């Protein structure tokens, strides 16, 4: 199971549980920033086979419990997605 991290811009309300949405995540393996379409859920049980994602506040504090994430599409790294090269 892969592990990801996500920085909240404001608070948890910006994440729509169970709905596909485009978000910025980083893979724990090397911390590369990726833009993905994904479904996230606060409970791993409702997304069988999903990966783990840790949430951090904008000052870097990690929330105590991980969420789950199912990536539907990977748009590439953040700079590539922004068309910078």
């Amino acid at each position, binding site marked *: 199971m892969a592990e990801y991290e996500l920085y909240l*811009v404001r608070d948890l309300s910006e994440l729509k549980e169970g709905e596909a949405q485009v978000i910025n995540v980083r893979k724990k393996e090397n*911390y590369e920033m990726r833009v993905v379409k994904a479904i996230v859920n606060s409970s791993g049980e409702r997304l069988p086979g999903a990966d783990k994602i840790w949430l951090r506040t904008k*000052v*870097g*504090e990690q929330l105590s419990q991980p969420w789950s994430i199912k990536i539907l599409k990977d748009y590439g*790294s953040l*700079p*590539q997605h922004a068309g910078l*090269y």
Partner: protein
Amino acid sequence: MPFPHKDLREFIGDLESEGELTKVTEEVDWDLEVGAIARRLCELTLGRSVKAGGQRAALFEKIRGYPEGFRICTATLANYKRFAMMIGHKDPDVATVRELQDLYLEKMGRSTKPNIIGEAPCKENRMIGDEVDLYKFPAPMIHDGDGGRYLCTFHIVASKDRNSGWINWGMYRAMIHDRRSLSIYFSPGQQGLMMYQEYEARNEAMPLAIAIGSDVISLFISGCKLPVGISEMDTAGGLRGRPLDVVRCETNDLLVPASSEIVLEGFMPPHARLWEGPFGEYPGYAATPRDRDRPVFIIQAITFRDNPILTMSNMGVPVDEGHLSYSIAWAAEFKKYFAQNGLPVVDVNILPTSSAQLVVISTKTPRAGIAHLYASAAELSWRLVGFNILVVNDDVDVFNPAEVVHVWATRVHPDRIYPRKGPSNPLFAWGNPEERVSATAPAILYDATWPVEWPSEFVPRKSSFRTIYPQEVQEKVERKWIQYGFE
């Protein structure tokens, strides 16, 4: 002891022979472990040499997931002895802060043009275009919660003024996004940002280079606050006492130290901003939250030495190499500026233990309100960005932290504490959220001088060994100290 050191490797060798560096052969993880070790080294050292109880600098020789030879060096200038070795003090073990300030000013007054050479150690290996991969280097995740892996924390950022051609070397943190790009954090008013804004206003990309693991004098100089238009590489040559070898980049005409371990070349596109931060910074906090407004550096080429050494600084609570080395440089510059402007300054010290945020000034007091003149002068000298200032009488040794704390706690009347509004720094932890964003957190002036209008008999007599006992008693006690059974 060699001076100047021809490259980082010679300095590392010198540190090792002086017992100031440990080569860590045990495998360490780039993901937090290296950062945690560096942080602990700084916090245990507190600026002291190893002989005086401090810890060594570290060269990590085996990094998880990276080939043998890819190394990280940290805490390189994290005590006074290492700074003294860097700047060429004749006896680094006993160098005082005042001597280091004087040596800095003496050498910074010189300027020597660099040698531009063709082939250079930093060109031993090349990655060009699609070959570029920042993940080939063991960029550390320094603090838990950092916005990414910070490849650049003790380095040189080279850019050229669009109009004059002046090449600036600065030190601005840079975080990896992916194999070919980083985001750079500039504080408001920093010269690299001012240059970028000139290009951006014309919708042009700014050529940029970052040199990592250069000779320690060049690394140090790039973090000093030199005036606009002054070349750091000429100043480095002056400080070295001989020209610095520099080399042109492969893809632009920027100049970087030839001995650098790793050189990143590329450009900053106009109007491109991405997320960056948070990052544990030198005031001792991760006070800048994640922000999507950071310029981006796209890498076109990387050149590097065989077995490259990545220089890293773990900023946080005191005392790291930034606190120590820049407190010496900035205090020396303040003292020079005050004297040039006719202020009766005696000494200036920036306490590294204040995260280099408290400037302590000792002065004669020929008139009332002298503390305000220092604060105004400090603000006029473009070097002051929100420092707190403590002004004390000339009986105080500003280099003695215990004495400074005592005076601060006992001589500052509440009516003589003055918040001062002005250009500030988003990194300052005491700023409220709005002040941090707008870089307007006020600084504080503490006037600890005795009011000149007080009758002399009203100034309390200082009760210390040096001031309360007759000279003959002091001399007797000192002469017989060992005889009493003390050390």
